[in-house]
């Protein structure tokens, strides 16, 4: 039952989950037909033969558009949904068959749905969770004090959860997910709906627990800043299949290798032609140049221009990671539709 330290916290092989979706016929007539003649059934593969693993101490990002299969994957990994086929192991155990043993060792933060009891205050919640997880009173006190301090919950400890702001509630949810000292966290859109400061806070908390306690995590988010800041590796899923698996940075080189170089020159030029790059715009003294980062570096382009002109200032722009991901999703859709 013990997991060796070099083993994965989470590993999936050909994990698949199928759903049966009932088609609803449109209109009143359709509704009556549906009632009499049975409904049209459609099989949908929410997750389609995916394989992945999460190592000890690692934070892996699971990203993809809405309906891609992220939540379904998390539900199977946490043991609340049974896979249709393939296998998943959490701490080396089958999470569906041994849900209770597995649930003792992970924590969950759903950004969209709180796991707290609305009428209890944070303080009462921790007492209740200490009972649920059967913590020793001393252990529970220590852990609660640590979390209150680390997450800054002191100001609203005695306010019923229903009266907290979203940012405060998410912090309480994170504390609730950590009170039993889990080895692993499922973070399902933990920053959704938060303002910029609160998002940054939540990220630094997650980073803190990862560094301080070696808690590994599987994180889903639509905010690429979360993923860039926290994840050493990403899994990009769409339509139940992985589009990409690996570190985030190479993704940019692969899907958006072009960079933009913006130069301010001393005197205006006309008809500038370059061997290494393409001039895409001239506006007075400002020149915009696009080049392929795989073929040459920004210094190569700058050198070529500087050989004939005096460069006053320059900046390099790359495609924001959001757009890289958007391009990746679009590629996935195109491939599916045979465009």
């Amino acid at each position: 039952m013990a997991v060796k330290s070099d083993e994965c916290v989470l590993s999936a092989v050909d994990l698949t989950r199928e759903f049966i979706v009932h088609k609803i016929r449109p209109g009143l007539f359709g509704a009556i037909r549906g009632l009499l003649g049975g409904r049209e059934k459609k099989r949908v593969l929410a997750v389609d033969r995916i394989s992945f693993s999460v190592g000890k101490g690692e934070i892996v990002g699971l990203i993809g558009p809405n309906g891609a299969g992220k939540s379904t994957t998390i539900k199977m990994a946490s043991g609340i949904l049974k896979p249709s086929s393939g296998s998943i192991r959490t701490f080396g155990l089958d999470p569906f068959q041994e849900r209770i043993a597995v649930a003792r060792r992970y924590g969950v933060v759903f950004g969209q749905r709180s796991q707290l009891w609305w009428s209890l205050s944070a303080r009462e919640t921790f007492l209740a969770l200490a009972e649920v997880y059967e913590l020793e009173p001393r252990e529970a006190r220590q852990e609660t004090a640590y979390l209150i301090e680390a997450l800054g919950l002191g100001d609203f400890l005695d306010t019923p959860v229903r009266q907290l702001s979203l940012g405060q509630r998410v912090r309480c949810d994170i504390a609730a997910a950590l009170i039993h000292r889990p080895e692993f966290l499922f973070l399902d859109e933990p920053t959704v709906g938060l303002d910029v400061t609160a998002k940054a806070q939540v990220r630094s908390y997650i980073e803190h627990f990862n560094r301080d306690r070696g808690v590994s995590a599987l994180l889903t988010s639509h905010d690429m800043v979360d993923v860039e800041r926290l994840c050493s590796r990403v899994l990009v899923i769409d339509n139940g299949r992985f589009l990409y698996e690996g570190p985030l940075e190479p993704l940019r080189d692969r899907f958006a290798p072009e960079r933009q170089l913006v130069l301010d020159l001393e005197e205006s030029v006309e008809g500038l032609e370059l061997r290494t790059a393409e001039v895409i715009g001239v506006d007075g003294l400002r020149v915009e140049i696009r080049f392929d980062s795989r073929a040459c570096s920004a210094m190569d382009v700058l050198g070529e221009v500087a050989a004939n002109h005096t460069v006053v200032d320059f900046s390099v722009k790359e495609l924001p990671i959001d757009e890289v991901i958007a391009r990746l999703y679009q590629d996935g859709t195109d491939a599916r539709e045979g465009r």
Partner: protein
Amino acid sequence: MLRIGAYRVFVHMAVREAMAFRAQFLGSLYLSGLFLLLSYYLWSAVYGEQEELAGIHIEDMMTYLVVSALVQGAVIGGTLTTLGENYVSGSIGTELIRPLSFPLVCFARTMGSVTLYLILRGLPVFLLGAILLTIQWPAPTATIAFLISLAQALVVYFLLEFTLAQLTLFTETHSAAAQLWGLIVSFATGSLIPLPFFPDTLRAILFALPFQSMFYTPINIFLGGTLEVGPITETLMAAGLPSILAALLCQTIWIVLLVPVAAGVWRFSSQRLVVQGG
């Protein structure tokens, strides 16, 4: 291993939630009282000049109504609807991430709300009815047997309701299961009409089913075990047990039989469970 401490919070939460809606609670207390009054008038009219109908004396009938009101006060709480809503909305997902058995979480919750309703709704109506209708009080031993039987009735209530709630997974809405459950509680348990009043065939069926354990059995024990009983109790009595003990044991047998049924149905439905929502 059954770890009681881990489930205590759910008893506590159920009590809190039940107390949160004071106006609703007072309203239902009023309705329970009114319902008892109406049953009193109805059954007085049914009996008319007669002393005895279907083997039940008019005085026993009045006691029957008052004890039934006590149990009704405890169990008419709509926990099946709550359970069904859990499935339909997908909030069951947040229950399943905890290292707890889901059926036991539900049991803890039901016991919390049922105990609260028994004390705050069943008991006042029962006491009022007991004074106004001058009921027959049981002997001390029968009283103890009645209290045990009442506790067992609440366990049977949970087991049956939990089992039926799993229907929600197939109907994808909780109203069908809730309506079916409402019908069963009203007619198959003897809560509104004592089982001896049913026509022969139906009576034979109802006496062979576990639903009687919720109302008819504890009321029969309250009345000293003088009412007609089902085949299991009869067999136990033929074996030499006093009628009260036989009725009590019959209830226990039903619990022993229903636990694996509820566990099995849950095992089956948890495999098919689709936790809705992202």
